[in-house]
């Protein structure tokens, strides 16, 4: 295989691996820009993956699975909101709690219902999101450079992949071009000012969390019934945290979030490719370096060595209306 073919295959797998990160990081974007820290993204992803796999298994309908995934993630989001907005609890603690609940519940319920060691049943093909071949992909295949790129990277993905990339400009538009987005960003910086303007801080933050649940639901669904055909124990495997890292790496902005997720997805794909291979001159590179690289890069960024990552000012602080 020549280098270009290898590059194309890594790029294709990088995109597939970055989609759950992209949905989740965008989900986190909405809640964190509204001033609610969310380290429960991992749990939301896991819970919605389980729900979508269950529903898709029983109905054989991928869209019903997606609906269930979204609904579950929104329920988790609302619990997070109830704890951190209404009861002014600690947002980090609430996130940790929900991660635990999701990790435990999915296995306990999965084992009780399917009896396959925490796996759900195999979802039938019609219950999954499968690849869509874009028009002209076969014709284009023989065109040099652009052909393989179009046929193997851009075409052949499932609908959720295209939705993920569509969500990037949509998120940008909502955050920067609508009244809701302006208020959402304001409530993350200075909730007191938003309150003074006569807008409910709580309701605004709850709405932001609904959007978060909505997007996280896509991420879980993608894992369970687009990338694979069943729910597997702990299948999110820390992706929620990588997405959180990507969100910080992108300095809480939608378009950079996309590039950060693609970068982290690429690292993941490259690590898979490099497993057991050795580079000229350097020799065999331990795959663990690539696994740790997203986190190391994020820490370096947080240290302020590559620009400054400034989180929303009111993030993590519960808003008390009366003093």
């Amino acid at each position, binding site marked *: 295989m020549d280098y270009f073919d290898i590059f194309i295959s890594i790029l294709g797998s990088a995109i597939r691996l970055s989609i759950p990160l992209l949905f989740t990081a965008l989900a986190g974007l909405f809640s964190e820009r509204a001033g609610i*820290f969310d*380290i429960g993204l991992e749990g939301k992803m896991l819970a919605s993956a389980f729900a979508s796999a269950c529903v898709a298994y029983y109905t054989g309908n991928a869209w019903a699975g997606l609906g269930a995934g979204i609904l579950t993630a929104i329920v988790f989001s609302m*619990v997070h909101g*109830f*704890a*951190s907005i209404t*009861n*002014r*609890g*600690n*947002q*980090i*603690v*609430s996130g*940790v*709690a*929900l*991660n*635990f*609940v*999701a*990790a*435990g*519940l999915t*296995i*306990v*319920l999965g*084992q*009780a*219902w399917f009896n396959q060691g*925490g796996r759900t049943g195999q979802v039938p093909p019609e219950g999954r999101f499968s690849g869509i071949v874009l028009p002209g992909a076969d014709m284009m295949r023989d065109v040099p450079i652009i052909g393989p790129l179009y046929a193997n990277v851009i075409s052949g993905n499932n609908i959720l992949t295209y939705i993920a990339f569509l969500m990037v400009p949509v998120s940008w538009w909502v955050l920067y071009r609508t009244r809701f987005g302006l208020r959402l960003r304001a409530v993350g910086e200075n909730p007191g000012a938003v309150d003074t303007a006569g807008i409910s801080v709580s309701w605004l933050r709850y709405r932001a969390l609904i959007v978060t649940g909505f997007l996280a639901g896509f991420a879980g669904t993608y894992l369970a019934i687009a990338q694979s055909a069943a729910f597997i124990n702990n299948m999110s495997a*820390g992706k929620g*945290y990588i997405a*959180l*890292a990507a969100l*910080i790496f992108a300095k809480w902005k939608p378009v950079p979030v996309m590039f950060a997720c693609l970068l982290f997805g690429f690292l993941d794909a490259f690590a898979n490719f490099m497993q057991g291979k050795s580079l000229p001159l350097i020799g065999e590179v*331990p795959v*663990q*370096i690539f*696994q*740790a690289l997203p*986190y*190391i890069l*994020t*820490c370096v960024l*947080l*240290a*302020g060595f590559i620009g400054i*990552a400034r*989180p929303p000012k009111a993030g993590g602080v519960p808003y*008390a209306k*009366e003093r």
Partner: protein
Amino acid sequence: MSTASVSLPAWINYGVIPLLNLVLAFFFSGLVVWAIGENPFEALQLLLIGALGRGEGIGFTLFYTTSFIFTGLSVAVAIHAGLFNIGSEGQAYLGGLGAALVALSLDHYVPWYVTMPFAVIGAALFGAACAAIPAWLQAKRGSHIVITTIMFNFIVSSLMNYVLVRLLIVPGKMAPETRTFLEGGQLPKLDWLIALFGGRLGAAPLNFSFLIALLMCFLVWVLIWRTKLGYEMRTLGISPSAASYAGIRYAKIVMITMLISGGLAGMMALNPVMGASARLQIEFVGGAGFVGIAVSLMGRNHPAGIILAALLFGILYQGGAELSFDMPRITRDMIVVIQGMVILFAGALEYMLRPAIVRLYQQVTGK
């Protein structure tokens, strides 16, 4: 009038409210058990018998308790200085490397009581080293410690993966773990402690590190409430601006606090690595670092409370394991659900019941 400013007597604040939160957590966990078609009361009974019924069960319960005391103290020390250390998991993992290196290099030559102090220092140093970078980033560069400690959990996990798979693995073996330590690198079992109460330890791995954990509880109490450093830490935790006016150096206190916190987390490794399995295994921490968050919250960041809360989670862990034998429909992971519920109700929803209790209290006392 807002209920938030009304002060309640200590027995309500530290007794009734945590207890009610715990009851709520168990109620919702019971609902899950009921939903999968088992009797929650029967499950609770089996769980308690499994955890406390026999000497061996108690031995396992106290073994888990030991780990949770260390991680609980680790989280609590940081919280007193206003720092949220989510990295106990990774710090304990790296601490395991410290303990294992000491055990591997000394076990041929000296008895366990000579190895032990070095192992304690090794584990604490490695744990502290893992906390040092996030601490420095928080103190000097203003990066959020929650985020950096999460990142370090994963960085350490990759690092340990590399160390075990490539460097410390026994040649020719498949399992990524070190060789078994000789007796000089193991901590002795506490048979006599259980025998004192007429039970038998059996195969339970309760070991000497339990006593180290209790000693650490005392030392942490002394540190927080009886030393100048502890006073400065608490001042910083309650009001960073007041601390600054009082001439307390922010960066210094943050660094010291996190090093202590990381060191305590690192010492947790003594229990599973040198006490139970006598080798360093992959993923040996198994979530104990995160349980520490729950333990610290439940125990209100006080060593005495932490011992009780660690015992509670020890019972849950051991009882949950036994329960999954008796009720195969309920897997071991049910304890993860209960843990989550406890963290949710005792931690995040801590204040949910408070307004109602304040109103009730005011009615009863007629104020």
